């Protein structure tokens, strides 16, 4: 499967994506977790121990096109090779690759940025599942950072702003390649939060993750919740989400 987590800033994309990737890997899938947020997040919920694991500079080459400087993967380097060489191996065999992290105010990220996009356009196919963590908000998730995804999971909290962001994302998705877009309710406290989110976003809610202190506690320690508190309700909810999406893969 190829899924990408999107949603408002702070909705819980990284927490859920990392947990999802780990639990999916435990079902026997080969999982590549992709972090396209220049601010760290996914590394912690996966437990890979590195927060800056982008492509090295020499994996990307500069060329000129109509007088403009451009970047692409080094000649002969394919996406799958880049993953094989540069992705970091994390727990449960998850492979982890990211767009480099922001390095100071004057960091020019063009090289990293277009190199990473080169990998996104040539991801390993057979036998691999892709789980992406996208930057918060509505900045081009469908056509740029998430263009590999077949399913977008919009993480939505039961709050006006989060629901509004979910609705905007649903609208943006419609204008692009019309991928499958589903909502995941997160930080759920009330029995009708799922309905509120479905009604407010117009999206089908495929999973509901409760507000769970285990996540905050794990975050405080910088540990993945799957390791810190494997029996936490939030972990069980993400496991159900993995199963729900696997069933959809089989039926579609």
């Amino acid at each position, binding site marked *: 499967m190829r899924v990408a987590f999107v949603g*408002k*800033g*702070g*909705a819980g994309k990284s927490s859920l994506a990392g947990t999802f990737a780990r639990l999916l890997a435990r079902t026997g899938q080969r999982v590549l977790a992709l972090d396209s947020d220049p601010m760290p997040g996914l590394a912690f919920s996966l437990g890979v121990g590195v927060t800056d694991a982008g492509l090295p500079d020499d994996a990307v080459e500069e060329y000129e096109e109509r007088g403009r400087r451009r970047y692409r993967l080094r000649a002969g380097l394919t996406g799958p090779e880049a993953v094989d060489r540069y992705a970091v191996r994390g727990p449960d065999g998850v492979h982890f690759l990211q767009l480099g992290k922001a390095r100071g105010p004057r960091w020019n990220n063009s090289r990293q940025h277009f190199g990473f996009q080169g990998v996104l356009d040539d991801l390993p196919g057979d036998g691999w599942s892709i789980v992406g963590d996208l930057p918060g*908000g509505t*900045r081009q998730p*469908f*056509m*740029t950072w998430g263009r590999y995804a077949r399913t977008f999971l919009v993480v939505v909290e039961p709050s006006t702003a989060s629901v509004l962001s979910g609705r*905007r994302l649903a609208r943006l998705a419609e204008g692009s390649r019309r991928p499958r877009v589903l909502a995941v309710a997160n930080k759920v406290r009330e029995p009708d939060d799922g309905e509120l989110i479905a009604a407010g976003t117009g999206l089908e809610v495929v999973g509901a993750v409760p507000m769970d202190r285990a996540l905050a506690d794990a975050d405080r320690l910088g540990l993945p919740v799957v390791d810190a508190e494997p029996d936490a309700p939030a972990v069980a909810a993400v496991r159900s989400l993995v199963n729900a999406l696997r069933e959809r893969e089989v039926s579609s």
Partner: protein
Amino acid sequence: MKIAVVGKGGSGKTTTSAVLARTFARHGHETLALDCDTNPNLGISLGLGEEATERLVTVRDAVDAGEEDHAVSPDDLVERFGAPAPDGVRLAVVSAIQNPEPGCP
């Protein structure tokens, strides 16, 4: 006084900005609240309501439509395209992503 509120997603930037803006306004300062997020929600936190927040025309859209020709200064731009919010705060939204476009991240 010009204050910019920054931080990680979900850390409370919008809520903090809104409370600051309304507090300054209540103390008698003329206050402009600028939403620089491309997924703008400051209107909601200021108390403008969801529908009004969604209806706000962004300064960028106005400029793209050539409207700035009619505005003689930044103050004028804010005057024209800002919206009134509670406690006399003026809210202006810089830009919002309305359509998916390839290329620009």
